């Protein structure tokens, strides 16, 4: 197990910059998830760590040793591919012990390692089968087994669950998490699925357009997204965004949305600044008291029962807004209701830069030293 240091890493393919300088330090045993839309550079970063691509600038250190110029085979890492990349002409057993045979591990020890890993993953009965005879879930397990037979310094996962159906994905997600708890191995996991990121990660690295947007524990990204991108990417249903203007009259700060005024705590920004108000669906109460000054009139457009709760799509404040209620909602489409966003849960972003505007009282305290 090892620490991984990523220091000012850039990658350019021909004339295209894919990574614009990434800094990241991963602690021993940590589970880090790189998340972002396709083309954000997360897979490229993983491939740079694996040694499958050349680093253009910067350095990657595994356990303090600079690996920029080491071939993949010399880095002692294991990787699970999206396609699983099982060797089609080899049995499951040969697939799993290939890395051990390349390292000239004694046959006896190799067999123990394979049997141990196979037992852990529940594939011990499949050892003599060829990959093409396996189901998607079984292939996935073999790919994981191939990674854990040797004890590498780190595990890399490149969207390992995206070829599975929803049910299996949920199950494997749990198993990966359990495996990490057992082995305590340093892991870097790439996904575009923010639910996987939220459930698996010790820390999430949110990336967009070759830049790290935010690094932190899942809850921090969820509750304090540093910019519009992270706010919009993390969370499902996605955060509602409403164009607004920040106003301050004496001691009172409020947002103006169309004709509506929404009171909020003061932010460190000039009076009259255009901002984006972000509201999570679960922070909007439906069936509010019409007399409440924070209540907003809305027209129901669509009702989506989830079983667990209900998503109510409404037209309000001149835009479409989604509200999540854990109760069973029986509103008809077209009916008028009152919604009330929770004022403590307002996320305010400066429209021009997309950066988060913190409450003024906390602003100084939350700045990193």
């Amino acid at each position: 197990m090892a620490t991984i240091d990523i220091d000012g890493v850039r990658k350019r393919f021909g004339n295209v910059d894919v990574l614009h300088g990434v800094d990241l330090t991963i602690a021993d045993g940590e589970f880090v998830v790189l998340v972002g839309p396709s083309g954000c550079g997360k897979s490229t970063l993983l491939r740079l760590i694996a040694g499958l691509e050349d680093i253009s600038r910067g350095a990657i250190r595994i356990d303090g040793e600079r690996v920029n110029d080491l071939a993949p085979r010399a880095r002692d890492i294991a990787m699970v591919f999206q396609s699983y990349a099982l060797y089609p002409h080899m049995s499951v057993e040969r697939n799993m012990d290939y890395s051990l045979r390349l390292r000239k591990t004694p046959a006896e020890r190799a067999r123990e390692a394979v049997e141990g890993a196979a037992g852990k993953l529940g594939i011990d009965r499949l050892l003599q089968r060829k990959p093409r005879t396996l189901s998607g879930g079984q292939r996935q397990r073999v790919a994981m087994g191939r990674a854990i037979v040797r004890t590498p310094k780190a595990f890399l996962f490149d969207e390992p669950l995206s070829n599975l159906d929803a049910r299996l994905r949920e199950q494997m997600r749990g198993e990966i998490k359990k495996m990490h708890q057992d082995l305590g191995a340093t892991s870097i996991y790439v996904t575009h699925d923010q639910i996987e990121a939220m459930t698996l990660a010790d820390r999430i690295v949110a990336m967009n357009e070759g830049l790290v947007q935010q690094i932190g524990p899942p809850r921090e990204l969820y509750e304090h997204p540093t910019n519009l991108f992270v706010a919009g990417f993390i969370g499902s249903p996605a955060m509602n965004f409403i164009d607004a203007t920040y106003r301050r009259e004496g001691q009172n700060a409020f947002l103006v949305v169309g004709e509506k005024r929404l009171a909020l705590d003061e932010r460190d920004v000039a009076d009259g600044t255009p901002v984006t108000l972000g509201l999570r669906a679960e922070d909007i109460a439906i069936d509010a008291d019409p007399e409440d000054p924070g209540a907003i009139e809305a027209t129901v457009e669509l009702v989506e029962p989830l079983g667990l709760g209900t998503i109510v799509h409404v037209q309000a404040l001149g835009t479409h807004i989604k509200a999540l209620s854990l109760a069973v909602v029986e509103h008809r489409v077209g009916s008028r209701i009152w919604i009330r966003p929770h004022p403590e849960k307002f996320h305010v972003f400066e429209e021009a830069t997309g950066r988060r505007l913190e409450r003024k009282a906390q602003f100084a305290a939350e700045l990193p030293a």
Partner: protein
Amino acid sequence: MSAATLKRAGYWTMHYAIIALYVAFALFPLYWLFKVSLTPTKLLYSEGVRMWPSRTTWENYGFVLTNSDFPRFFLNSVIVSVSTAVLVTVVASGAGYALSRFRFRGKFWLVGLMLITQMFPLVMLISPIFRIFTPLGLTDSLLGLIIVYTAFNIPFATFLMQSFFDGIPKDLEEAAMIDGAHRFTAFRQIILPLTLPGIAATLGFVFTAAWSELLFALMLISKTDASTFPVGLLTFVSKFSVDFGQMTAAGVLALIPACLFFFLIQRYLVRGLTAGAVKG
């Protein structure tokens, strides 16, 4: 019977009539070759154009196999074609792999060069190659032919192998490299075994091409004991142009290895061409 049934019956009659015509067109010349080779010499002038002679004989084959240089020609052709096929497949696997897996500065020029060699007239090279090979002792030598045929077949074989490599996911050798293999180890242990059908097809194509080559063999070989089958047959034809039975018997013999290889690779032929288009 309804009109639709009639129409369908008419369609299928047409269909099979056209198919039958094509099969006849493709096979009749070969049938005739075989027929003449079985006709006794005495009957040739009286029954030459009958669909089947009144008496058949294998004596033409007996003569060709025992009293002529054809066994020697046959052996020479096998040596040249097998060596060429193996050599080309090895070299083209490397080049096809490079084209399939790497981005490198010389790639554009390499591909361009190979495409051009497919366009220009190879007869152009007959004079210079003859003059270059003579002092090197490569004329009247099977080695000389192998070298020439190898070079000529590399471009096509490279593109063929490239298309087979393209069909194998890159992830596989990346997984192997992470598992601890050198790229070359991954190439030998993971990629090549998966390309076996492609290797077989390439071997077949190149063997057939080398087996059929005539012009360079005519130019570079003048000694009988270094002649390949095409040269031997053509010399025989121009020398004994009335021994039709023996000529056609030799022709049938020349057909055997090429057709054998063709039937072996036939299924890869259409599959290989369609593999890229129809995803399975």
